[in-house]
């Protein structure tokens, strides 16, 4: 294609796609008719020139779309994740008949309401900016995903309806059958929300690993094939888990904000409890997250070695060092919050002596994790060092060392959590010493196995073994965590409590760990999102539709980090607005003498 297409042509294609979708549904013969008509309706992916990209008001198209997409994604992650754990907390409240859970779930969902509007606004801005700045790409994608875009719009309405009834009907639908009805609405809300995410994931993963099209980009008419592309499920899993961790961190920041501004001990106790639960949710999702990320990266490699090498061995490799620093920050702040939280129990003194050792191990693993393989050096430094690799620290720069480090960090975070859970309990079973011995043996054997796999397969075998050994490493970690929780629950069955937990007895600085968690998560998602998108390099749709705009180049890492940082600051400002709205919604002013008596 040599010049811009007329808008009427694009509209005609969109309309044709939507009409086709409806016709197919009406006839009920999806397979054959859709394929036949779609082949006739779809041509190859357009070949664009710089003139095909409108320049509007001198705005940088890429930066505009980048920021709107990022803001939309942050808000969407938040509003999709919070209802998931709100639903779980509501179920816990229903089962235990402890109203505190119900109140907490309601407060969590209250924050989501304002964020939901902002998500929709950001989504609208993203869609408009795509249509305005990248019309041919949007037309091509909507030609393929016309049906799913149509259902996306319908599902969006369904989600809005579910959310508003779920929130505004909270106090109305209480007790007996009404509570069951409310929970069903919560389940429906989560089902619709997750389906929305899966659809949007299909569009972005199609751009990375296109399917359902031929080499020229001609759509076969099978939209499911385009949706179910190679990277769809790896992204689905990674985003689902990450969203929960992210949602936990944002509501944790809200609880911290409320804790720090609380005026009564009761309020402090309530928001301390809320912050603990939010951090617990974030940690539970954070523990399996590196595995989901590793799986995604492995699948990217499997789909395209070129993309894989660009991802972690090319220009983006240094962003993974920043990623390591940020994930290390997440682990340290989550652990620090747990250690501070142990002060709520008078029985915690028995375990505080071990904290320094956990801290040492976490920091050592953190240092290994962000040790770069290839150093950025001046010519003089290169000559002095004899190459870009440090002789002693260089071996720590390869993946087996990182995998070992992250598994050790996860195991020690699980250990911190075990101490936290034990802090206020005294075991009453006669075999408590033997039980503790088994726990120590389990952790020792698990760590020994992780080190064996990391060192032996990482440094004395070939690449195939290095990659293959990462799977038993992950499984070892999961086995240790699962077995340890099971064993501890048996040891502490019927345990006595040291005393009542003193909610609110936590230093203010612990709340800043919750803020740090939210900020680190936000920045991390922005940077990693940029990498995921950036590995397409000069392609809109990899190997199918080339990006020929003036921005079809990979920006410097500093520039990318600045864009992500600006977006993160805008997002945080909006989050503060959301918190403020939630704050004032509970404030009443009674102006004396203003209203008629």
């Amino acid at each position: 294609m040599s010049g811009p297409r007329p808008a009427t042509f694009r509209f005609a294609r969109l309309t044709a796609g939507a009409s086709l979708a409806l016709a197919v549904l009406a006839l009920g013969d999806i397979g054959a008719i859709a394929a036949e008509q779609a082949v006739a309706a779809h041509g190859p992916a357009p070949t664009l020139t710089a003139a095909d990209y409108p320049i509007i008001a001198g705005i940088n198209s890429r930066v505009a779309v980048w920021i709107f997409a990022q803001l939309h994604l942050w808000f969407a992650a938040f509003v999709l994740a919070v209802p998931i754990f709100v639903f779980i907390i509501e179920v816990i409240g229903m089962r235990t008949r402890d109203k505190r859970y119900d109140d907490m779930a309601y407060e969590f969902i209250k924050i989501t309401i304002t964020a939901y509007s902002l998500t929709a606004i950001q989504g609208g801005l993203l869609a408009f900016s795509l249509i305005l700045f990248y019309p041919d790409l949007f037309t091509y994608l909507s030609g393929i995903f016309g049906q799913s875009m149509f259902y996306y719009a319908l599902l969006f309405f369904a989600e809005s309806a579910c959310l508003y009834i779920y929130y505004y009907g909270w106090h109305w639908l209480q007790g007996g059958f009404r509570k069951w009805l409310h929970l069903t609405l919560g389940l429906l809300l989560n089902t619709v929300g997750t389906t929305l995410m899966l659809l949007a994931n299909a569009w972005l993963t199609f751009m990375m690993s296109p399917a359902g099209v031929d080499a020229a980009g001609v759509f076969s008419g099978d939209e499911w094939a385009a949706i179910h592309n190679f990277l769809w499920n790896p992204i689905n899993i990674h985003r689902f888990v990450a969203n929960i961790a992210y949602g936990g961190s944002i509501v944790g920041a809200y609880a911290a904000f409320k804790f720090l501004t609380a005026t009564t001990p009761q309020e402090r106790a309530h928001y301390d409890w809320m912050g603990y639960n939010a951090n617990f949710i974030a940690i539970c999702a954070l523990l399996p997250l590196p595995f989901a990320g590793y799986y995604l990266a492995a699948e990217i490699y499997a789909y395209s070695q070129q993309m894989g090498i660009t991802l972690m061995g090319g220009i983006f490799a240094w962003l993974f060092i920043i990623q390591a620093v940020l994930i290390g920050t997440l682990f340290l702040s989550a652990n620090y919050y747990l250690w501070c939280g142990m002060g709520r129990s008078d029985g915690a003194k028995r375990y505080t002596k071990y904290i320094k050792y956990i801290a040492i191990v976490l920091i050592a693993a953190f240092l290994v994790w962000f040790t770069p393989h290839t150093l950025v050096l001046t010519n003089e430094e290169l000559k002095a060092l004899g190459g870009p690799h440090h002789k002693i620290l260089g071996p720590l720069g390869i993946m087996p060392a990182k995998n070992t480090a992250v598994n050790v960090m996860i195991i020690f975070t699980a250990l911190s959590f075990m101490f936290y859970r034990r802090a206020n309990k005294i075991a009453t079973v006669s075999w408590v010493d033997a039980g503790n011995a088994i726990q120590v043996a389990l952790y020792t054997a698990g760590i020994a196995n992780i080190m064996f796999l990391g060192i032996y397969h990482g440094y004395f075998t070939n690449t195939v073994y290095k990659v293959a050994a990462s799977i038993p490493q992950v499984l070892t970690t999961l086995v240790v965590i699962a077995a340890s929780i099971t064993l501890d629950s048996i040891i502490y069955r019927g345990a006595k409590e040291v005393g009542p937990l003193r909610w609110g007895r936590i230093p203010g600085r612990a709340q800043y760990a919750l803020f740090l968690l939210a900020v680190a998560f936000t920045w991390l998602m922005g940077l990693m999102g940029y990498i995921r998108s950036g590995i397409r390099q000069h392609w809109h749709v990899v190997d199918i539709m080339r990006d020929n705009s003036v921005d079809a180049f990979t920006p410097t890492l500093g520039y990318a980090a600045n864009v992500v940082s600006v977006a993160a600051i805008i997002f945080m400002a909006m989050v503060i607005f959301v918190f403020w709205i939630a704050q004032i919604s509970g404030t009443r002013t009674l102006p004396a003498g203003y209203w008629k008596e």
Partner: protein
Amino acid sequence: MTGYVLPFAAALAVCLAGFLLLDMAIMNMQGLSLIFRG
């Protein structure tokens, strides 16, 4: 001390053996042996 050391030693042996079996099984499933054969 016996109440601690013996269970520890026994559990350590069992856990190490269990993890080794797990490693062998996973590596075999990937068409590899636990011990590298260049």
